[in-house]
């Protein structure tokens, strides 16, 4: 759907030319004279006391300029942020290196070796002798809740970080009066975000200014929090997110290395660089998911859901990072899905374990919520021998019910869930698929059709842990020649804001997209902002640009009217030119208005010079994209292999600004979601060693492992922002996991298999069928 000449158009990305020619500059591409390199010594134990650290040999090694341990950090650094404050939350302090003599996960940073070359730093890091006294560790979050479990943070006295409850109605009564209850225990396994670019930090202290280049999604937050960590006034800190090679939430954090490298640059007076290795990335950058859910769904014979009970135990890992508790609490908020469930109760418990911390990873709590409710709906359908489609239809929140408040407290803005479902079914030819399935089963072939209908929440803003509320900043600056510079507080890493935000400005001001440049990621260039995450870019960041552009336009009209000696209400514009209505000869070009705005000798009385507006956009409410994903798989019961036959996604992200980019977001999202279903999963041994420690063992899909996707949309604009957009960065991931799992379980239904633990690898299929005579 084309909304205007610029909005809704398939416009090629303006960031691409530098990226496809190898000219883009990522952190590791920065090099400065005199720069030194950091290698970090990390704990090989999941839980241990440090008896001693001997850095003598490392200090003597060729090229070494400094070796830091916790003692140095204690003397020079303040703490790092530890998450949004939740009522009665207990979170330990964290620092750039372990300062209290206890390591709590494999990968916890113990010492930093700084040398003149990367090779020398790496060589010398092998010479740091750390004497550990291993302690009993706890890996399983449920075990961590047991009395007598090893306690990670002695001063907290418990492994429980927080407990939150959500809900409304009368759940006990609903269950008592229900005809059927289905129950399941779901393990939503840990995932590794694995952005293709690992993290990296370069810092330089020069002329009273600390400049930090970091691969982050939130440069402004890094700047504010670094002030405390490196004990420097905030206005002396300049943070730059250069080209960022993917994040998916893993760079929506403030990490110890950002503080460490900055503190080293201050202390050494030389530029300092640290580039994370992939192995470090797997143990020292946050993991995603990690939740155990006990789900009970009560319903009547006709399929009407009466009540939902959820107990979610979140594996937080060893520390609370920037937003750690905010992830599982999203699950509590969103667990009712697209359904009118009158009685619901969700308890969410965050638990520390001796593992890498978890935090926001693409979807951040909503995939977990969607997965649990969509699995429960399929279990209910199976129990009632109903078609999964019909059970969903029966319980959808009807279009007329919006805005709709769920018992868990979310207020859904708008939606038409059945329309998206119908579109997917039609496109798939659902009836024909079911017929084919029946036919193939007779031949001993197992086709499965999986459906997931989802609703998610986007436009999330900064909660208390970040530097502000749910807002974003934008500046639209018309230069004196009529060209436009946009500054955005969002900080893209592949989303294409340089293109979509130029489209918004082009739509509002009528200037060609080529006349707009969008700058981001530099805290000296851009007004304070929040960042890019939670599918907020378009609904929040884009809306900020929209409103700023509107204000610019209003001012331009006033100036034009003044120049043309007409009333502003009588001015019409096509963007290039302002004309007095009814007098086409009385007109002035946009670029002349811009020039006059700065020449400033002929402005309306009292008007400030310039054509430059900064707007901080605060959305009225959050917005709720939705859709239906339908997946068709074939399962080989002998080998356990799953093959994709088709994948159909109908997503409603409100108005679409650039279909090319929306499709890209959905494609990538689906692959990460289906990867959770059948490929990816973190495995630790019972002593907390990460066994999936490389790309050789942690199975990220390649082009050959995934199908092509058939995409479609419904469009239900959000009433809460001027663009009517809902955000689309995470939708694919949220819809895909349950769609794929439901498809596999549908294929295995003839074998009596009701549930399977993700990732559903060939071995898990085989294990489920093992002992089942039908499979032999």
């Amino acid at each position, binding site marked *: 759907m084309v909304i205007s000449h610029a909005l809704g158009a398939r416009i090629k990305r303006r960031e691409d030319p530098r990226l496809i020619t190898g000219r883009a500059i990522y952190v590791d591409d920065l090099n400065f004279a005199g720069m030194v390199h950091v290698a970090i010594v990390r704990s090989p134990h999941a839980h241990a006391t440090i008896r001693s650290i001997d850095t003598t040999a490392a200090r003597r090694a060729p090229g070494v300029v400094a070796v830091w341990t916790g003692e140095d950090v204690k003397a020079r650094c303040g703490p790092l942020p530890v998450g949004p404050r939740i009522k009665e939350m207990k979170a330990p302090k964290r620092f750039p290196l372990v300062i209290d003599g206890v390591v709590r996960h494999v990968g916890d940073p113990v010492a930093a070796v700084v040398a003149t070359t990367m090779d020398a730093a790496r060589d010398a890091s092998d010479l740091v002798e750390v004497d550990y006294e291993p302690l009993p560790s706890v890996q399983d979050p449920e075990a961590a809740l047991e009395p007598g479990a090893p306690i990670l943070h002695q001063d907290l006295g418990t492994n429980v970080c927080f407990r939150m409850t959500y809900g409304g109605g009368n759940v006990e009564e609903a269950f008592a009066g229900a005809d059927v209850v289905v129950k399941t225990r779901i393990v939503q396994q840990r995932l590794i975000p694995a952005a293709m670019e690992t993290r990296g930090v370069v810092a330089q202290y020069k002329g009273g200014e600390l400049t930090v280049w970091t691969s982050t999604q939130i440069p402004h937050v890094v700047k504010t929090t670094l002030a405390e960590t490196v004990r420097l006034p905030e206005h002396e800190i300049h943070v730059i997110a250069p080209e960022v090679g993917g994040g998916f939430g893993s760079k929506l954090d403030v990490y110890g290395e950002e503080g460490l490298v900055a503190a080293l640059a201050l202390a050494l007076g030389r530029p300092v660089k640290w580039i994370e290795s992939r192995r470090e990335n797997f143990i020292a950058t946050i993991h995603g998911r990690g939740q155990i859910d006990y789900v009970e769904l009560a319903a009547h014979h006709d399929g009407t859901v009466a009540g939902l009970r959820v107990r979610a135990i979140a594996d937080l890992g060893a520390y609370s990072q920037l937003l750690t508790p905010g992830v599982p609490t999203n699950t509590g908020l969103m667990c009712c899905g697209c359904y009118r469930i009158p009685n619901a109760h969700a308890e969410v418990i965050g638990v520390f374990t001796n593992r890498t911390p978890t935090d926001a990873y693409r979807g951040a709590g909503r995939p977990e919520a969607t997965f649990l409710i969509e699995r429960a709906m399929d279990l209910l359908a199976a129990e009632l021998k109903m078609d999964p489609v019909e059970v969903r239809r029966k319980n959808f929140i009807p279009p007329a019910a919006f805005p709709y408040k769920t018992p868990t407290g979310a207020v859904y803005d708008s939606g038409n869930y059945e329309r998206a479902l119908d579109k997917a079914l039609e496109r798939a030819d659902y009836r024909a698929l079911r017929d084919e399935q029946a036919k193939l089963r007779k031949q001993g072939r197992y086709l499965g059709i999986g459906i997931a209908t989802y609703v998610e929440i986007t436009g999330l803003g900064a909660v208390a842990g970040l530097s502000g509320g749910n807002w974003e900043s934008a500046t639209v600056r018309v230069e004196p020649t009529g060209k436009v510079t946009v500054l955005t507080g969002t900080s893209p890493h592949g989303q294409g804001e340089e293109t979509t935000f130029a489209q918004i400005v082009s739509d509002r001001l009528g200037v060609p997209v080529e006349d707009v440049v969008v700058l981001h990621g530099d805290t000296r260039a851009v007004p304070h902002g929040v960042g890019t995450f939670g599918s907020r870019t378009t609904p929040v960041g884009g809306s900020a640009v929209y409103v700023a552009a509107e204000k610019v336009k209003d001012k331009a009209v006033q100036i034009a009217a003044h120049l043309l000696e007409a009333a502003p209400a009588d001015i019409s514009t096509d963007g290039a030119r302002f004309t007095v209505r009814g007098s086409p000869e009385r007109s002035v070009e946009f670029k002349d208005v811009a020039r006059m705005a700065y020449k400033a000798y002929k402005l309306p009385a009292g008007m400030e010079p310039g054509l430059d507006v900064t707007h901080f956009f605060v959305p009225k409410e959050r917005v709720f994209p939705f859709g239906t994903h339908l997946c068709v798989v074939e399962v080989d019961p002998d080998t356990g292999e799953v093959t994709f036959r088709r994948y159909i996604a109908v997503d409603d992200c409100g108005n679409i600004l650039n279909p090319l980019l929306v499709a890209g977001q959905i494609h990538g999202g689906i692959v990460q979601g289906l990867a959770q279903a059948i490929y990816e999963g973190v495995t630790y041994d019972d002593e907390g060693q*990460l066994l999936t420690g490389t790309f050789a063992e942690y199975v990220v899909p390649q082009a050959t492992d995934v199908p092509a996707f058939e995409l479609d949309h419904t469009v239900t604009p959000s009433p809460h922002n001027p663009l009517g957009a809902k955000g689309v960065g995470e939708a694919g991931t949220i819809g895909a996991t349950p769609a794929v799992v439901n498809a596999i379980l549908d294929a295995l239904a003839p074998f009596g298999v009701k549930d399977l633990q993700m990732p559903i690898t060939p071995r898990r299929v085989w294990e489920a069928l093992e002992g089942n005579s039908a499979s032999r």
Partner: protein
Amino acid sequence: MKVEGTYTLPASRQKVWELLNDPKVLAKATPGIKQLDPLGGDTYKATIEVGVGPVKGTYAGQVSIADKVPLERMTLKVEGGGKPGTIRATGELRLEEQDGKTIVAYTGDAHITGLIASVGHRLIGGVTKQMVGEFFKALENELKS
């Protein structure tokens, strides 16, 4: 990583027990042990070189014998640390004599940390089995000599 099995040695229980308690034999039979220095009791300071094809690592640590019930059972413990991480292995050996031969039943558990654990996981099982085999084969050779 757990291993278990049995191995039959062509000698009396008395003879096997003596061998297992002889630090020189232990040093020779335990794969990778380059040096064994007594630290008192049944504990020895050890330098262990584990080499599987091109993968080589040197670990400094201790070998000790515990839970001794003469002629019946003992626990062999190996602990060491090196660049690629740490190794902690315990093996319980139970001896039983049958027709002049000794059947050694073993259960072992090895904990490996660091790089080897995450990179070499797929090979650890096979290599552990291989090393246990080498250990008994070396004991058998000792009996022959």
